[in-house]
C-alpha cells in the first residue's frame, strides 16, 4: 500500500467544479435513532441531501438505540418517515435504493461498553466495504440526561478519534439547563473531544433567512452606515408560536420559554443583528463577534429583572379557530406551575455601536400566529418638513423587517406621497420575498447544518464560550425570578399577543409592540 502523506491535500479533481459542496464519505451514527427528531428531521434531511447534493456513494447511517430492530426494519421505518416528512415527495426509488444501502442499525443500551465495541467493529466494516475512510459523525439525538454517558463511553471505546479520517460530534439543544449544568456538560465533552470536533446545533442558524441576515448586512454597502445607535431607535425581535405544548408538558415544566427559546434562538438572532462585521467569513471569526455581543449585554440582576422582563402564562382562549385550554390545564403541567410560556425582555448592549438602543425581545406560545421576525425601527427624520400639511402625524418611522418565518423575506417601510393635489404621505412597504424571487425551494435547516458538519464548517454551530455567555446572561434572570413571588407571573389569553403588562412595559418607553 503506498505511503499516505501526513497532511492530505484536497482532492484536485474537485477544484473549480460547479458541483455543490460534496463532503467526504463518512458514517453518521445517530444515538436515539428511534426517536422523533431522527424520523421527522434527520432522516428526511439526509435523504434530501442525497437527492439534491451529491452525497458520496459510500455515505452511511447507523442508528444506535435500545429497541430491537434489524437493519431492514430500521430502513423500512426510515422510508416511512421520509415519505411523510421529506419536503420532496414522493421518494425517488433510485435515490432511495442507493441511500438505503448505507443505512444500518445497532441495538444497544447507551451505558453498555459492549455496544460501543460492536459499534467500533461495524464502523470499521463500513470503512472497508463502503469506503467511509474513518470519518465519523456522532449525533446525540437523545434526552440531554444521556449525553454524559454516551460521551464518556465514546471516549472509553476510543471512538472519539479516528486512526484515519476525522470524528465529530453533534449535540442537540438544550445544551444544559442553566449556567452550571452547561459548564459541566462542556467540561465533560472537552474531556473526550476537542472543541473543533464539537458541533452544538441550533437549527435556527440553518434557516436560509437567518443566514441572510449576515448577507444582507455585509454584502450590501448601504446598510452598515445606518446600522447603529445614531440612526436606530430600537430593535424588536419576535419569535411567536401559535402552538401549545404538543404533549411535551413534562419537558416544558422544567424549561419554560426563557430556556426553550430565549437562551438559544432569540439570543442567536440578537447576536447576528448586533455583531460587528467579522474580519473573515470563517467559523471562528464570525463566532468571535457573536460572543462579544453576548459579553456586552448589560446584565440583568436584582431590580433590573423586575423592570426589564415580563413573564406570563397562557390562559384558555381561541387559537387558529379552536378553543384551547390554559397552560396549567395541560397534561403533565402542575396546576400551581410557575413556568412561563411568554417572555418579554428589554436589553441593552454596551458597545459603541448600540449604547442606549433598547432591544425588545419577546417569545411565547399560543400567540395568534407563528412568526419570527427582526424589526429595526429607525429614528424619525431630524426635521419634519411636512408639519404644516395634512401629512403631519401620518409620517411613520422607517422600519426594516427581516422576516425569518413565514413569508420569508425582507421589507422596508418608507413614506411616499399619495398621488393627488395635496401633500399627503402614506407609509408603503418595499418587499423582497424569498419565495417569489428565488423559486428554488429552500432547503430545510437541518439539511444545511448536517451538510456543514460533514464539510467541517462550524460557522452555523454554537461554540463553547458562546453557549456559556448566553447562559450567563440568562442565569441572572433565572436567579431573580426564583425570588419573585408568583404574582409577578402574568397571564394572557391564548390567541392574544401577550399580557397587558407587556404592552404597558413598552408603552412606558413611548413605543409599541409591532403586530407582525
Amino acid at each position, binding site marked *: *500500500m*503506498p*505511503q*499516505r*502523506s*501526513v*497532511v*492530505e*491535500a484536497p*482532492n*484536485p*479533481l*474537485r*477544484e*473549480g*467544479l*460547479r*458541483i455543490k459542496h*460534496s463532503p*467526504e*464519505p463518512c458514517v453518521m451514527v445517530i444515538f436515539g435513532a428511534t426517536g422523533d427528531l431522527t424520523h421527522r428531521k434527520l432522516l428526511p434531511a439526509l435523504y434530501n441531501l442525497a*437527492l439534491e447534493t*451529491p452525497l*458520496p*456513494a*459510500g455515505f452511511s447511517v447507523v442508528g444506535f438505540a435500545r429497541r430491537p430492530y434489524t437493519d431492514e426494519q430500521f430502513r423500512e421505518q426510515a422510508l416511512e418517515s421520509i415519505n411523510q416528512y421529506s419536503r420532496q415527495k414522493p421518494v*425517488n426509488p*433510485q*435515490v432511495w*435504493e*442507493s441511500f438505503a*444501502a448505507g443505512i444500518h442499525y445497532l441495538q444497544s443500551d447507551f451505558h453498555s461498553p459492549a455496544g460501543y465495541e460492536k459499534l467500533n467493529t461495524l464502523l470499521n466494516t463500513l470503512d472497508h*466495504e*463502503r*469506503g467511509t*475512510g*474513518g470519518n465519523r459523525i456522532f449525533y446525540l439525538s437523545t434526552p440531554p440526561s444521556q449525553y454524559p454517558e454516551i460521551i464518556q463511553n465514546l471516549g472509553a471505546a476510543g471512538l472519539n478519534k479516528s486512526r*484515519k*479520517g476525522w470524528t465529530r460530534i453533534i449535540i442537540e439543544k438544550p445544551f444544559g439547563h442553566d449556567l452550571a449544568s452547561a459548564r459541566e456538560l462542556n467540561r465533560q465533552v472537552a474531556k473526550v473531544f476537542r472543541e473543533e470536533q464539537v458541533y452544538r446545533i441550533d437549527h435556527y442558524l440553518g434557516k436560509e433567512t437567518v443566514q441572510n441576515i449576515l448577507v444582507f448586512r455585509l454584502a450590501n454597502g448601504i446598510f452598515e452606515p445606518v446600522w447603529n445607535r445614531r440612526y436606530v431607535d430600537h430593535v424588536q425581535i419576535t419569535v411567536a408560536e401559535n402552538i401549545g405544548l404538543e404533549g411535551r408538558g413534562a419537558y416544558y415544566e422544567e424549561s419554560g420559554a426563557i430556556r426553550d427559546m430565549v437562551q438559544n434562538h432569540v439570543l442567536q438572532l440578537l447576536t447576528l443583528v448586533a455583531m460587528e462585521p467579522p474580519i473573515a467569513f470563517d467559523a471562528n471569526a464570525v463566532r468571535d463577534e457573536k460572543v462579544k455581543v453576548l459579553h456586552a449585554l448589560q446584565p440583568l440582576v436584582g431590580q433590573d429583572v423586575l423592570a426589564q422582563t415580563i413573564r406570563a402564562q397562557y390562559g384558555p382562549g381561541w387559537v387558529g379557530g379552536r378553543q384551547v385550554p390554559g397552560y396549567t390545564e395541560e397534561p403533565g403541567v402542575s396546576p400551581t406551575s410557575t413556568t412561563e410560556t411568554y417572555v418579554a425582555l428589554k436589553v441593552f448592549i454596551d458597545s459603541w455601536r448600540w449604547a442606549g438602543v433598547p432591544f425588545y425581545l419577546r417569545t411565547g406560545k399560543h400567540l395568534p400566529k407563528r412568526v419570527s421576525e427582526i424589526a429595526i425601527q429607525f429614528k424619525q427624520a431630524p426635521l419634519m418638513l411636512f408639519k404644516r400639511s395634512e401629512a403631519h402625524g401620518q409620517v411613520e418611522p422607517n422600519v426594516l423587517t427581516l422576516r425569518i418565518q413565514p413569508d420569508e423575506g425582507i421589507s422596508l417601510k418608507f413614506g411616499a406621497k399619495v398621488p393627488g393635489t395635496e401633500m399627503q404621505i402614506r407609509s408603503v412597504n418595499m418587499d423582497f*420575498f424569498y*419565495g*417569489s*424571487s*428565488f*423559486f*428554488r*425551494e429552500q432547503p430545510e435547516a437541518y439539511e444545511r447544518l448536517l451538510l456543514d458538519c460533514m464539510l467541517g464548517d462550524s460557522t452555523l454551530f454554537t461554540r463553547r464560550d458562546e453557549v456559556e455567555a448566553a447562559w450567563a446572561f440568562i442565569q441572572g434572570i433565572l436567579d431573580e425570578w426564583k425570588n419573585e413571588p408568583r404574582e409577578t407571573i402574568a397571564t394572557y389569553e391564548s390567541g392574544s399577543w401577550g399580557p397587558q403588562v407587556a404592552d404597558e412595559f413598552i408603552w412606558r418607553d413611548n413605543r409599541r409592540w409591532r403586530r407582525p
Partner: protein
Amino acid sequence: MTNDIARGPGVRLPWAGKIVNIEEVETQLSLLWKISADNMRTGQNVNVRTSVLNLVICAPDIESAQHASRVLRELSSTHLARVAILILDKSEEQPDGLWTWVTLRCFSMFSDLMRHCFEQTTVLATGSAIRAIGNIMQPLLKPDLPVYLWWLGDPPDIKDPTFNNLMEISNRVIFDSTGFFNPEQDIYTLAALPDAYPDAALSDLNWGRITPWLQLVAQFFDTPEYRPYLAGVNAIEIEHAVIPLMAQVRTEQGDVSPNPARALLLAGWLKTRLGWELAADTTGNHHDTAGGTYSWTMERSPRSTRLLTSPRSKAGKGNASISIRPQVQAEMRPGSICLVRLTSNIENKRATFTIRLAGDTEHVFTSVELGHEIRSKRLVSLTAVHNEGELLHNELEVLSHDSLFEQILREVAGLLEDSSLRSE
C-alpha cells in the same frame, strides 16, 4: 430605418402572443399586467412579478424559437423577469422586416393560487434588421438586470456582426454542444470566445450533462485509500454513444451522431486536473472525426501535479494515454457518456476505476479494482439532468465566469488542434 422596415402581420405566431409595433412593447406589456391584475381580483390568484434577469434567446428559425418557448415552461423555478426571443431569418429572399409580439406568461407555482409571470417579447427580423438587432433589443431589456443570451444551434463565426452586437449587451452566452453539427470546429469556436468577449461568461448545457460523471470520478479519490492512485493514472478511456449508422446524421431530437463533445470535455477535464501535457511524439495519436474515435499519447510530470504532499510519492514521469471511442447504442441520445475508466499504476500496484452505464441512463456501476481484487462495486443513481429546462435553469443560476469550463474548452481545442482537426 424604422420607416423602411416592413410591418404588419406577414407571419402568424399564435404562441408568441399579440402582434404589436416594437415602439409599443412597454405600453402593451403594462396593459397585459393590468389585465392580469384585474383577473387576479376576480380569480383570487396572486400574480408574482420578479426582477432578476433578462433572457435573450437567439433562434435561427421559427421552429427552434417555438421549441425554446416551450422549454421556458420548464423554467418554473427560475426568476425570469423578461424573455426576448429573437428569430433571425437570414434567408436570402427575405426583404427587410421586423415583427414583434408580446405576451405575459404565467405559471402556477407551489399552488394554484400563486402564479409566476414573466414578460415575453418575440422579434422576427429579416434583412438588414438582423444586423441592427443589438440596438433594436436595447430598449426591450429590463434595466439593471443581467442579460443571458441563449444561442440556439451552431456557434456563429466570431466576427459575425449580429453575434458581436448581442455579445456586447450580454453577461453570459449559453450554447448546447450536443446539437453542434461540426462538433470539433464548433468547440474550437467556443474556445475562442472568452478571449474575444472577456466580459461575457460562457456556458454549454453539455457541461451540465457531464457534471454527474465528473462528480463520480472525483468521488473515487475522496477516499484516502485511493487518493495515491490518482498520481499514478496512466490511461483514460471514455466511450460515447452513437446511433448505428455510418454517416454523420442529425436525429429528430436535434442531436448529432457521432458527437463526441461530452467525451472531449470529460477528457479535457481529466487532462487538466492530472496536469498532463501532449507528448512530443505524436505518431501514436489517432483521430477519426467521422467515427468519433480519438487517442492521444500524453506525458505525466510529478511537478505538474499536486496530488500528494509526501515527497515519497513514487508517481514519476512517464507516458499516459487518452482514448475516446464510440459505443453503438440505439436507444440512447448520441453523445451520452457510456463508460469512463481510469487505470493507475503505483509501485507496481495496478488499480482500475470504472464507471459504466448499468443498462439505462439513470444508473451506473462504479467499481474499484486493486490488482485482481474488486474492492467495491456499487450501483449508483446518476442523478443526471437530462431535461433541457433544468440544464438551462442551472446555467441561469451562475453569475460569473466558469473558469474551469473555459479552461477545459481551451484544453480540448489544444487536443483537437494537435490532431490537425481544425478546418481552415
